[in-house]
């Protein structure tokens, strides 16, 4: 399998007033296509920043970042928008569903952006909602759904366009443990079925246990792994290229 994400010497800084904060420092990371990878670390370690950079919604300052083998730096905002539209799905901690849209329409939205024909759109959305167990709630607005149902809608929305990568930022943080377990199972099963690469920032041990590889970040730096189990062969971290 070839690498979907290749980062080399990647750094990212923020300016907070007069102080420059290093969010990511000299990150060396490869994520193979089809990987199910967890990003762990304490608050402020740079998990979300790394996730945002991987999701092409934030830019790095230094280093090299190849997505699908193409250099990200130098892409115009319009090119990045198209790239996200075609290749990346997002699952947010707060679900981030569009409140005026039904569950069906929220899932349908990425296909609308891709100009998928209406009949094909409807069939795929119905199929996806069926898959996440929400066929009966298709016409419900987000405020008529439980937290777990909302996150399942968000997962369906992320996967509906069969993206290369799904970035999920603390997808179980706002859910009770039973619902979180269901969501973890669902994400894992869908990842297995679709072959989509998942990159998940999480504190949830149940989630990390299901991941092929857990990447640890501390103060913006990837921590070298003492040992790499066979299941994590899709990921190399800490400059081990």
């Amino acid at each position, binding site marked *: 399998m070839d690498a979907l994400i290749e980062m080399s010497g990647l750094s990212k800084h923020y300016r907070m007033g007069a102080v420059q904060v290093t969010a990511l420092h000299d990150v060396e990371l490869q994520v193979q296509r089809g990987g199910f990878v967890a990003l762990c670390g304490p608050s402020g370690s740079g998990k979300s920043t790394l996730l945002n950079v991987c999701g092409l919604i934030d830019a790095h300052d230094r280093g090299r970042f190849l997505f699908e083998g193409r250099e990200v730096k130098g892409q115009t905002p319009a090119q990045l*928008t198209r790239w996200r539209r075609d290749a990346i799905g997002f699952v947010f901690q707060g679900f*981030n569903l569009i409140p005026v*849209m039904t569950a069906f329409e929220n899932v349908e939205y*990425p296909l609308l952006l891709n100009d998928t024909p209406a009949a094909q759109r409807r069939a795929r959305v119905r199929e996806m909602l069926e898959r996440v167990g929400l066929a009966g709630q298709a016409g419900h607005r987000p405020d008529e759904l439980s937290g777990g149902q909302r996150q399942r809608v968000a997962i369906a929305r992320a996967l509906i366009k069969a993206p290369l990568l799904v970035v999920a930022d603390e997808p179980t943080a706002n859910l009770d443990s039973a619902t979180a377990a269901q969501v973890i199972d669902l994400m894992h099963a869908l990842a297995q079925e679709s072959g989509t690469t998942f990159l998940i920032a999480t504190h949830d041990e149940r989630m990390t246990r299901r991941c092929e590889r857990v990447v640890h970040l501390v103060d913006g730096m990837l921590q070298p792994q003492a040992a790499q189990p066979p299941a994590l062969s899709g990921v190399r971290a800490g400059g081990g290229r």
Partner: protein
Amino acid sequence: MKWLPLAWRNVRRNRRRSLITILLACTGTAALLLASGFALSTYEALREMSARQIGHVVVAHREYFHNDEDAPLSHGLGDSQTVMSDLLADPRVATVVPRLNYSGLISNGDSSAIFLGTGVDPEGEFRINGALTPVEQGRALSTHPAAQGDPEVMLARELARKLKAGVGDTLTLLTTTVDGALNGIDVQVVGIYGTGTPELDERALLTDVATAQRLLRTDKVSTLAVYLYDRDGAPAFAAERARAWPDRALRTWEDLASFYAKVRALYDRIFGVLGIIIVVMVFFAVTNTMSMSVTERTREIGTLAALGTSPGRIVANFATESGIIGLLGALAGMALAGGVTLLLHLFPVMMPPPPGRTEGYPLLFYFSPAVYGTVAVIIIAAAVLAALLAARRGVGKPIVEALSHV
């Protein structure tokens, strides 16, 4: 799902705020329509009044409009009958009315006053201008005056009061003839009328043309007022005749209606500024609403952008919402203005006399589909523009920042 239903749902998302903005747009639209309707109604009334009083086209001696006369009727039309016959042969001409302007002294034996007289053809003049010279006492000049007895005169209201003259009284008109001699004639008051203008009410009188010509010892008239079947054809008619008659001067009513031109210039400025203020108010109201909406939905904007929605599409969504608000406001405003216009037609309200006039006038609002359409487009455009500006700021925010907005 399409973009328009989505925009409609977002409009309904904060109903109270949307309703207030729609009401503002409605009020702005109605105010613009009523103001422009009032201006258009005034213009039309003044156009009609001016064209009737002046004539659609006025034919005169070539010097008449340029130089003052050294002696009475030195710039008069000597061949008025020939010109009238020629004009009346034109199928575009409805009628031609001669007028002879003169001045002098009018006396009741005890006191006298300066007058500004007009010799008219009573039949044609009162048929056209009867409504504009309302007879308050007595009657209008006879169309076929008796051969015996004094010639008839109609006095303006204030002139009659000053001379203590009533219907049936005999007065004397004194003036200078075209040869420079003094001449006088006794006239009998048959009617008292109002001109609508205080200054003219103190000086004006009407006699028939023959009486005026007899007094001035001439067969000339000052002007011929030509009335066309189509008032709007006056410029073309005047231009055509001017080419055929290089020794005569022709003017359209619009050339001579200085009062109309001044009122129009004044109203254009007043209502123009008023219109701009109203549009700016609507613009800021919608900007405020959309800015609040954009701020509240910053996280949503971030989500849409992360999902791959282009900034242009996000801005277009907000513009569509604003366009819906503008459209609803414009439709409601049009209905309101239309209702007020209709009500005033059914239940007229009189306005006080404007400056320089003695008569009030009915408050009317002109209904013009073109104006309604234009105002609606302006209001909707202002709303859309406001949304574009507000939403541009929203989509300009970095996605990560937008997603973390609280």
